[in-house]
């Protein structure tokens, strides 16, 4: 496996630092050579900035990639949005010489140059490709007896032409990784439906965005699960913080715990919910935390 640098993005370090901590703990446990990526910025967010101005989107994205090129490392993302933005920008710049040239005109002003020597990875596809569910299962020390509602998040698998991770209608690779922790990935209606946050909808049209995520909540709450698992902090923010907003807007209360995959994997590696920042979510579900404690004590 190539060496990696960790691209944090915005929401993880600046809103959900527990995911950053969980990622660090998992990477160490898995003995993955992954450095920091000092000085990285917003990816920038694909649905908004790419749609405002392509040259700005490419300039900022390429700078982040170049920082990793300079370290001779591939970029590791832990967010579907960052993964989408950086992958798409990287592919376009590698394939289109004219775009690469015009982007490098901007980069030259800060003494940088895009070469196209780094790849962009997402932690879920990296773990699936480089380790595989069987190996992860063998490394798990605390199998989790949990029922999980998995939310893939759109930009992990789509557009499929760019991602090439198999079926977009009913993918299984992420479910397999969830089940490697001992948890059960429970099927539910509209499992692949969007959380409603992307494309600038959450920022500009919050009420509509919340109606979309409320649809997911209603489907998930019927499925008798312990928690939601995702691999994208923007989905995470929408699924966790969104529950409080839905409660205020529609008077509906779900109280479903939400975990990033690195937090789920961290639990299966024996780390405590506090070490993984699971208690720092907007939704505080004491029954879930008590269940985790019980699981840990039974080991």
């Amino acid at each position, binding site marked *: 496996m190539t060496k990696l640098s960790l691209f*944090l993005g*915005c*929401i993880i*370090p*600046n*809103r959900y*630092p*527990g995911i*950053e*901590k969980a990622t660090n703990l998992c990477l160490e446990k898995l003995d993955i050579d992954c450095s920091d*990526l*000092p*000085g*990285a*910025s*917003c990816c*920038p*967010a*694909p*649905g*908004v*900035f790419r*749609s*405002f*101005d*392509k*040259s*700005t989107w490419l*300039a*900022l994205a390429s*700078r982040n990639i170049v920082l990793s090129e300079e370290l001779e490392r591939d970029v590791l993302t832990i967010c579907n949005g960052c993964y989408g933005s950086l992958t798409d920008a990287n592919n376009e710049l590698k394939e289109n010489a004219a775009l690469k040239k015009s982007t490098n005109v*901007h*980069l030259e*002003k*800060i003494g940088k140059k895009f070469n196209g020597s780094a790849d962009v990875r997402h932690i879920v596809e990296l773990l699936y490709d480089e380790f595989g569910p069987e190996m992860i299962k063998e490394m798990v020390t605390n199998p989790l007896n949990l029922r999980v509602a998995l939310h893939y998040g*759109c*930009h992990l698998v*789509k*557009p*499929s032409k760019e991602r090439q991770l198999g079926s*977009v*209608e009913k993918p299984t690779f992420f479910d397999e990784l969830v089940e490697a922790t001992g948890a059960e990935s429970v099927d539910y209606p509209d499992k692949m*439906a*969007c959380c*409603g*946050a*992307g*494309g*600038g*909808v959450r*920022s*500009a*049209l919050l009420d*509509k*965005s919340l*109606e*979309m995520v409320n*649809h997911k909540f209603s489907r998930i709450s019927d499925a008798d699960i312990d928690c939601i698992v995702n691999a994208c902090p923007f989905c995470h923010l929408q699924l966790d913080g969104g529950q409080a907003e839905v409660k205020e807007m529609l008077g509906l209360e779900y109280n479903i715990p939400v975990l990033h995959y690195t937090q789920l994997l961290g639990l299966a590696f024996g780390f405590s919910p506090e070490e993984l*920042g699971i208690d*720092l979510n907007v939704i505080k579900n004491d029954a879930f935390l008590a269940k985790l404690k019980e699981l840990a004590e039974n080991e």
Partner: protein
Amino acid sequence: MSKPDVLKTLQDAGLDVLTCMQCGSCSGSCPSGRYTSLNTRRIVRKARKNKDILHDDDLWMCATCYNCQERCPRGIKIVDAILMIRTIAVHEGIMLPAHRKISELVLKHGHAVPINDATKEKRKNLGLEELPETVHKYPEALADVKKLLESCEFDKLVVEKQE
């Protein structure tokens, strides 16, 4: 200033909306369309007819889930087309206030979601450094980001145009 040719811009970018047969798979697959006025099929039709769609509010209701693009039987890159129509609109000065605000955050902090005191406290309690290894910690890196944004004239683009 002459009116932008939306259809030509899309076609030049390989987004061939003219092959659309108006089957409606896009609208039927759209999670946003269940709750908003977004009618993807109508957007594609308006683009085909090269009608003025730059002021159409529906453009901003797409959550970019790509369902329509994946399922289009004609293989039209519908989300890419919507993003490109948005670009033309933004360059015509049409932009939602909330999106100007996010743009200002990136111009100022290099992050669309900058850090706050509550998160700094959480970071400390987790044993992480108060500031992450991003532009937040390295002022010279933030200066580079600002220089790039200026070079792309992003600051001028997102400032509200005075009529």
